[in-house]
């Protein structure tokens, strides 16, 4: 049974997406859920193109000026480190993030 569980975890880890491995894993440790960041971005950028572009810009070059966090949260959590992901990986992760939390098709 132990062997089975370890094997399953290993297989799952190997199949986990860039978003899961590089974004969710870190955000899990924060008191603010990852979706809250998404809705903050949406509030400021509206469309898919603009939101994704803003996210990419921030993750590649994180600064206080281009962060969507308010000053209090910035003081508490600080500015994150620059991403180590390649451009392609980053875009893939952002796309998944968008698809997971986008509003389109979710309203009734």
């Amino acid at each position: 049974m132990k062997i089975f569980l370890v094997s399953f975890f290993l297989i799952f880890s190997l199949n986990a997406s860039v978003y899961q491995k590089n974004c969710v894993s870190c955000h899990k440790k924060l008191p603010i859920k990852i979706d809250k960041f998404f809705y903050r971005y949406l509030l400021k950028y509206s469309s898919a193109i603009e939101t994704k572009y803003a996210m990419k810009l921030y993750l590649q070059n994180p600064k206080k000026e281009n962060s969507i966090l308010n000053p209090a949260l910035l003081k508490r959590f600080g500015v994150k480190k620059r991403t180590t992901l390649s451009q392609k990986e980053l875009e893939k992760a952002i796309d998944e993030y968008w698809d997971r939390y986008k509003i389109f098709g979710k309203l009734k």
Partner: protein
Amino acid sequence: MSVLKNWDINLRSSEKKTLLSFFILYIFFTIIVLLLMAIFYFNTQKDLMLKDKRLEFSKYANDEIKKLKYLHVNFDKVPRIYPRDKRFKSAIYDSIYTKIFSLLDSNKVDLNEDIYLQNGNIFYIKELESYYLGAKYVVIEIKDDNLWKNRVYHTLLVYGGIILFVMLLMGYFLLYLLLRPMREAIALLDRFIKDTTHELNTPISTILSNIELSQKSNTDERLQKRLDRIKIGAKTISNLYQDLIFLTLSDKIESRKEDVNLKELLSQRVEYFSLSIESKKISIEQNLKDGVTLHVDKNRLTKLLDNLLSNAIKYNKIKGKIEVVLEDRYFYIKDNGRGIEKDKLEQIFKRYERADKSVGGFGIGLSIVSKIALEEGLKIEIDSVFKKFTSVKVSW
């Protein structure tokens, strides 16, 4: 001014036609101007109505935004049901005009507008400051109650009708003013003809009766020939006098219809012109069927025949030929004279119109023929080849 009071002159048909065309054109342009004014008024009223509604719609949009904000903040906690309102229908669009969610009847919304009317619905578009649920635009749609439209139509109908009536009245007076000099000119001409005609009667009768008396008492052949020539001239003036009398007084003379023996009348009229025919050495060929009668005014038919025969002689050449043929349903008079040019054929029935000005005349002969034919129910057909022949057929 005394001439103007004498209104028994009718305008010529072409003049009537011109005036009618002018009046139709005037009405047409008046209606066009009124339509343009109506469109302008309609659009102004529509804009005013939208301006009035804007405040109300803006309040609805703010209510909707509040609900969107609540849903945005609690998106993971409350059911994801788009906020609905009984007073209006709404939709949300993102910054690149992609529809996020819509309850609208219409799929096509112009997000660049502020407020507008389309297909009976009023649309109001509000841009959000914070894009709740990613929405940059909130669209509010309400069915137009058409109250303003009914009010506008009513106003347009009443005022448009009044303006049209005033414009028509003005057009009528304008036409009257335009007509005045023309009527004056025609009245003067007709008055002159009437006066001249009246003065011609006595001398012509005296000349004709004295010629006949002289011919009876004189046996000198040379003098007889001279008297014949004077007689032809006097008869020509007499015919002209009769024509003018007919033109100016025909409306006042009642038509007296009777059965007329056409062979008899045609022979009689040919005989009446015999001196003129002889003087031009014209040969006349009569082919008249017996027993053909026509129920018409004899005097008028005589006038018609005299004019046709007079023309056949006048426009014929020396040693020419005239053919007079009578059949059951028609008769015709054909001459081999100078003929009429094709482009002038349509004009020849007009008063004072003359196809050939090389010989004397006023151009009233065929106008009389046409008038009599119309009144007596006869059909006139003219066939002519320039420099060859002219044939006038009268059928019934």
